[in-house]
């Protein structure tokens, strides 16, 4: 099948070939290829390790959620919007917590946006217009392998014709493989990005006297040079990753780069693009925003949504022992959460919906296997720039989709509420 959409990373490439009978791929990157390969699956639904029907598993799951005081509904970034929407409504109806993988990933970027907004654009703005691309604290060659060719470094656009029309700068704490494709590399000391952004803002406005001779390990002259390079470009895109959002300073780092971008726009044009991870982590936030007003860390215990990222993220709710059941969809917190949070996960009943067995399967009371979104089930996903792209069903499957499972679970919960 042509024009297949990959459901691995936030770049959501939609120009791929996949043969569902042979599991043969063409043009995929290694990360996508691994996703579109035959892997060990959860074979059937289980309760306490015993095989049950889908109906029994869904019914038990609904009872657990209904009877708990504050269930945590976590995951969502690797499924489609249709399932996410049902997940948010389910969280509302069981008066639990809706949280998604962004809270352990780009949540600081969303918090920064609450403070300052964000000047951004679709990925085609890099391809078609950008003459200066700055990768800051991210490593696309390894994390989003087709990003540089498809959207950014080498992409051939209408007004910017390709690599020759574009300067590329990489800023990072070490010389990553992505730095090899850059025309300039700037090395900053770990944990100093916030300070470097403040210094650049001051230099851009001509307050050279307030900036020390060295900031974050970068000499002032080099920073001045960098600022001048930015001012003389026509359309700049700054792409950033967890090197900013998940190092010292977190959301404040992102807020400061947003302020820098605001300032650059007074001289020339500039946009900022977070390099989002999972293929639909943007959808997991956007859907929740239109359904309940907030993107993540939402508590419905009072019958209406409340947002508290220091209390109601998956990790915080577990660390604070503030949830007494959990539904985990398309995610593996047992492998990725801090140990103390996993300890709490072990103490409470856990329901898992996932195509593949993982660490979380081992501690789950109810395990519900599902069709793989984008391979065995279709739906809508949002690329890292929010562009909606349909992911497809390219292989027939007996497994229920996330959407079907959640729809049935919601029906059961509504029935339990009525009784």
């Amino acid at each position, binding site marked *: 099948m042509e024009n297949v959409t990959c459901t691995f990373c936030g770049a959501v490439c939609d120009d791929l070939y996949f043969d569902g009978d042979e599991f043969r791929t063409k043009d995929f990157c290694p990360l996508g290829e691994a996703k579109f390969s035959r892997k060990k699956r959860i074979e059937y639904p289980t309760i306490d390790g015993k095989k049950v029907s889908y109906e029994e598993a869904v019914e038990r799951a609904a009872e657990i959620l209904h009877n708990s*005081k504050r269930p945590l509904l976590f995951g969502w970034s690797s499924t489609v919007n249709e399932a996410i929407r049902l997940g948010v409504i389910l969280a509302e109806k069981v008066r639990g917590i809706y949280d998604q993988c962004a809270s352990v990933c780009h949540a600081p970027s969303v918090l920064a946006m609450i403070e300052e907004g964000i000047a951004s654009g679709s990925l085609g703005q890099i391809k078609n217009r950008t003459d200066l691309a700055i990768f800051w604290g991210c490593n696309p060659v390894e994390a989003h392998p087709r990003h540089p060719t498809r959207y950014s470094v080498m992409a051939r656009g209408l007004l910017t014709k390709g690599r020759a029309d574009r300067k590329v700068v990489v800023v990072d704490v070490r010389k990553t493989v992505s730095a090899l494709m850059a025309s300039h590399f700037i090395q900053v000391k770990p944990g100093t990005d*916030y300070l470097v952004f*403040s210094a650049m803002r001051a230099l851009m406005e001509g*307050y050279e006297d307030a900036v020390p001779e060295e900031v974050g390990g970068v000499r002032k002259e080099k920073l001045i040079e960098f600022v001048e390079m930015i001012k003389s470009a026509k359309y700049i895109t700054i792409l950033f990753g967890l090197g900013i959002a998940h190092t*010292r300073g977190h959301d404040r780092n992102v807020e400061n780069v947003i302020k820098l971008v605001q300032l650059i726009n007074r001289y020339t044009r500039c946009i900022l693009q977070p390099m989002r991870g999972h293929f639909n982590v943007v959808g997991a936030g956007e859907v929740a925003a239109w359904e309940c007003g907030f993107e993540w860390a939402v508590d419905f*215990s009072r019958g209406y949504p409340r947002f508290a990222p*220091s209390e109601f993220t998956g990790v915080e709710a577990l660390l604070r*022992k503030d949830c007494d059941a959990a539904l985990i969809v398309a995610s593996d917190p047992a492998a990725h959460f801090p140990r103390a949070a996993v300890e709490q996960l072990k103490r409470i009943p856990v329901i898992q919906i996932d195509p593949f067995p993982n660490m979380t399967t081992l501690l789950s009371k109810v395990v519900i296997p599902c069709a793989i979104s984008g391979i065995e089930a279709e739906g809508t996903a949002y690329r890292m720039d929010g562009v909606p792209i349909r992911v497809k069903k390219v292989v027939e499957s007996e497994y229920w989709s996330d959407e079907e499972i959640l729809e049935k679970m919601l029906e059961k919960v509504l029935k339990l509420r009525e009784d």
Partner: protein
Amino acid sequence: MLIIKPKIDFEVNVEAEITPDIATDLEYAKSFTVYYGKLEMSLAELFEVEKEGDSKVIVLEGDFSRVKWIGKGMLDGEIIVRGNAGANYGAFMKGGKIVIEGNADDWIGAEMEGGEIIVKGDAKNLIGCPYWGDLEGMKGGKIVIEGNAGNYIGEKMVSGEIEVRGKAGDFIGTEMKGGLITIHGDCGIVGGDMKAGEIRIGGIFELVPAFRETDDVFVGDVNVKGKGIVRVLTL
């Protein structure tokens, strides 16, 4: 005076927006609505509530680290927490006093307007800060942390005073517009986008590289044409 003790080990956190106003009427206090996950319950269902005398004082005994929102918006009176305290204590507080004898969680005195909070142990993050989306943090009153404090202290602070006797984390007085923050020990990044007010620091710290040094103080943040003052405390 009310003495309140948890009856059980809580399965999830409790939200109890109690203020000293309930201390003078035992029946009212006992029937006060608190939130236990999705369950709306009365205070007396989850806590032992006893009354001694008519003073506007609440004493919390036992572990309150999983009880949130105590003293929200309180106007007067006193709350004494004998052990550790949960999140959001004294948020929107306008007057009176909260004394936490143990450690405090996040959001102590968030958007506080008046009164006094004293934490004898350590406090976590977001002290006297504005909730997400709000433009002003602490507007008045005083917060004293006798131990150490976490990240984000006095953000968007307009007026009032925060004092940390021990060490503190990153982001002291970010976007501060007025008031006074004193950190006696070491701390991290100080003064980002500070517009006005004063920060005094006794230990080692990292000043945002957008301040001008004068004879005895630093003035900035130049990025917002700020007139904020960062002063090194000398013994």
